[in-house]
């Protein structure tokens, strides 16, 4: 969710820059950010669900299966 906020902030910066110089490029880049966020959310939530199925917990400290 914090990732979404950060992506939104980046998109806002692009749109503001596009509005400042009256260019459509800023909005185009925002569309790309939107598509990227959608793909990332889909994969991320699938991962979260998988972790929950496997460990019955979303605590990141519980995911200590790797030995290192």
């Amino acid at each position, binding site marked *: *969710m*914090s990732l*979404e*906020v950060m992506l*939104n902030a980046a998109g*806002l910066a692009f*749109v*503001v820059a*596009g*509005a400042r110089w*009256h*260019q*459509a*490029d*800023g*909005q*185009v880049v*925002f*569309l*790309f950010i*939107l*598509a*990227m*966020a*959608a*793909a*990332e*959310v*889909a*994969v991320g*939530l*699938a*991962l*979260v*669900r*998988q972790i*929950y*199925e496997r460990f019955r917990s*979303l605590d990141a400290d519980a995911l200590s299966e790797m030995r290192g």
Partner: protein
Amino acid sequence: MELAFYIAGAVAVIATFLMLTRVNVVHALLYLIVSLLAVAVVFYTLGAPFVAALEVIVYAGAIMVLFVFVVMMLNLGEHGVELEKQWLTPGIWTGPALLAGILIIEVFYLVRGGTAGLATGAVEPKEVGIALFGPYLIGVELASMLLLAGLVGAYHLGFRKVEKPEIQYGRYTAERRAAASGNPVLAGTDQLARTP
């Protein structure tokens, strides 16, 4: 115009801050939705109506529904029901509702003013489309491939191995309906007579 921009910006900042400081996931999600709507209003006041509409439809509509769905899905069972009752008490949604109400009033005033609010160098959707499918065509193709990869990845990760074969009822519809004495609802279930 200026005032609308600053109000929407303030709402966005406040909602985002409240979202980051919430302990409960669903409360944070409510504030995040309000934050996204506020950013959409900011886009509108900046003269980017196309992006504002997309922000509402895609971000606040699709992505946030996905979030809420997964968060709710992870809390199955009676424990989850109790939790949801606890989450949606009136005290919780008043904060987001208040901020969203400010935004609604603001959008109402902006829309009532017509396109006069978009006076200073608005970038029309037409220009965005021309730029998107002109010099940025390769980017569009790459985005489509990224979305396809996301789709396949989400499907693969969300796949669960079937442990026991699925029971199929109602394969012979006419027979089932006759056995259930004509009741189409019971014919589609595993019980043939209504049990009290």
